[in-house]
């Protein structure tokens, strides 16, 4: 179809379809384009002037031609007539108004163009459309509907026996949205070295036992696993709480404070490995600092932008992504650490050396973030 040429009816134009032989004789169609996004409805409805004339009578002076003036004088009637034959419902009837009246040319002549706006009670429920235009007087009339529901396009041809349209609130789009945020979550934990280092600092001693000022390997894998699960679960629960609170804008903290606190959490966790203060109940540490890390995740999510109509779902997706990323780290760390736990390589090299390196790096981060400097990290 040719792109519609819209011309504003500022000048009095003669819409003389009856006298213009170059226009097609075709069965009657109207073209309804709607975008429903959450509660908001916007769209455009092209209805042939010839059809409007047949239904409500436009030719005021009876000369067989319809002028812009004649159309303009009946704008209110046209809007009432048309909107009375279109119902949109999403959790109840949506309001619909004609925001603007224009005129356009199609292959079979001039069309009134109604620019529509509206509001629905629900922003997430399924959408129902009931189309009744002209069917009472022209059974060959068809409504050619192109509807975008929360970004998912649908197209339909509506006739007298098929005037109703029911659209599921975009399940596909929701799933896609969930998946998209899940991937973001995984990605963020993988590139978020501060989170990884914090977690590793807490996990490194999980395969060891500090007894009589000496580190020795745990006896059973089970004991190590339980320790790891406590730490990871506590960290997860904590950062989920603050991530959700921040994403829903219940609590907002300045990002410099949050980032500095995260760096400090890594410093303390690494230092605790070298000079043990907290030896038991490391999960409490994980929980406490997890609260801080949650605010860090939230700032990433804020940069991504959360869709208002799928906030909870996206949040959940992001969170699940973060957990999956975390689990991948734990799953690759724990078996190796357990196998190496009694070797000097692990105890001196990885545990002590790693913690020392982590401490150093996190101290630099802390300095950078607290004093807004650029030292090593990007």
């Amino acid at each position, binding site marked *: 179809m040719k792109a519609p040429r819209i011309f504003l009816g500022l000048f009095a134009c003669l819409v003389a379809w009856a006298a213009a032989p170059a*226009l*097609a*004789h075709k*069965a009657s169609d109207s073209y309804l384009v709607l975008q429903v996004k959450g509660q908001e409805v916007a769209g455009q409805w092209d209805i042939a002037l010839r059809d409007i004339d047949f239904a409500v009578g436009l030719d005021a002076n009876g000369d067989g031609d319809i002028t812009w003036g004649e159309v303009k004088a009946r704008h209110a009637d046209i809007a009432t007539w048309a909107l009375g034959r279109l119902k949109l419902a999403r959790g109840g009837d949506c309001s619909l108004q004609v925001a603007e009246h224009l005129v356009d040319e199609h292959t*079979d002549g001039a069309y009134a163009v109604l620019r529509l706006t509206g509001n629905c009670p629900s922003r997430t429920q399924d959408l129902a459309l009931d189309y009744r235009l002209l069917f009472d007087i*022209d059974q*060959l*009339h068809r409504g050619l509907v192109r509807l975008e529901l929360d970004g998912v396009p649908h197209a339909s041809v509506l006739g007298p026996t098929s005037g109703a349209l029911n659209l599921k609130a975009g399940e596909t789009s929701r799933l896609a949205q969930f998946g998209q945020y899940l991937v973001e979550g995984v990605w963020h934990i993988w590139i978020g070295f501060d989170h990884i280092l914090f977690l590793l600092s807490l996990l490194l001693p999980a395969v060891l036992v500090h007894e009589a000022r000496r580190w020795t390997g745990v006896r059973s894998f089970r004991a190590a696993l339980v320790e790891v699960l406590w730490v990871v679960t506590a960290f997860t629960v904590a950062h989920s709480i603050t991530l959700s609170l921040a994403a829903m804008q219940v609590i907002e903290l300045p990002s410099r404070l949050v980032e500095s606190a995260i760096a400090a959490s890594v410093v303390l966790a690494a230092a605790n490995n070298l000079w043990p203060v907290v030896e038991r109940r490391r999960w409490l540490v994980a929980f406490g600092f997890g609260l801080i890390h949650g605010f860090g995740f939230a700032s990433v999510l804020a940069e991504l932008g959360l869709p208002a109509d799928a906030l909870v779902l996206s949040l959940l997706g992001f969170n699940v992504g973060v957990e999956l990323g975390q689990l991948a780290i734990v799953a690759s760390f724990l078996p190796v650490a357990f196998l190496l736990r009694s070797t000097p390589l692990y105890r001196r090299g990885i545990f002590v050396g790693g913690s020392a390196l982590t401490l150093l790096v996190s101290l630099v981060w802390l300095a950078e973030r607290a004093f807004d400097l650029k030292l090593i990290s990007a």
Partner: protein
Amino acid sequence: MRPGDPTARELAGLRAAVARAAGDDPLPATELAGRYFELAMARGDPRYIGYADAVMSPFAGSRAAAVLAIRGKLRQYRHDFEGALADFAGALEADPQFAAAHAWRGAIHLVRADYAAARTECDALLALDRPTLHGGCTGLLLAYSGRMEAGYAALQRALDGTREADNRLWLLTRLGEVAAWRGQPEAAERHFRAALALGIEDGYLIAAWSDFLLDQQRPAEVVKALAGWEASDGLLLRLAIAGTALKLPAAKAQVQALADRFAAAKARGDTTHRAEEARFQLHLAGNAPAALAVAAINYREQREPRDARVLLEAAVAAKDAGAAQPVLDWLKASGFEDARLRQLGAMSAQAGSVASAPPPGKPEARP
């Protein structure tokens, strides 16, 4: 349509009668719907079909002959041939003397190339002592089924027997077509001109006359004959073919307008213009495979000589002998005598060895 013109006044009167009847009496609605149907046919304007449908919709349960008959006509317009045949059969149940229902059934059977069934309807018209309708029915049946001369004579006899202008218009148009198939352009032209001289608006006549002129290499006269008829898709098609042959500047816009209109019809799911669309794809868009696809689907539904011809032409142009097989079967079974079709059939049988179909309006070597 100007409000002052007689048609507008007549329609207003009929609508008022429908309103007064308030759904109790189907007769005023039937009259209004019949008038809408005539307007749709005369002007090639399908909106009137939709209006007629809506006027008749309160009487969907009626078994009255007149109601069923108008419904049958509206259904055949939409190519719902089975439904139309059933409606006309119902009309005959209610009124066995209803000759027009037999005539419509005969016409539908002819369109579908079911000549045995058509013969039954033609015989019924004879039994009802309706010589004009019988002559038209039999004349076409004979012409389509390989007895062109006898068919021509039957149509001529029917014409001689009627003074009614609408009947004469129809018979003269068909005589023109049959004469052209028989290779008698002078006789054909005489019939077409006599039909035009009746001064009755008729889209079918104009289309048949234009096709004849195109076949006779007279595109300039097509342009003249079709002035003011661009609103009808079928007639704009002929105008664009003529304009393209003459290299008229307007032709380009007409071809674009046709493309837009076929796209618009497709968007609404309309499939009643496939024969025209095939001609458009073949002769104006130069897309033989698309033409062949549309022509083949059309031929499953409509099997008149013009439908056979566009399928053959498309098959030859696309070098696809197999696609033309249904037409070759029909030519063989019916013995249809048009030399042009027989030659196209021979060409399509030589799969792959044919360079291209003869362009419209170019003379073809007669065997």
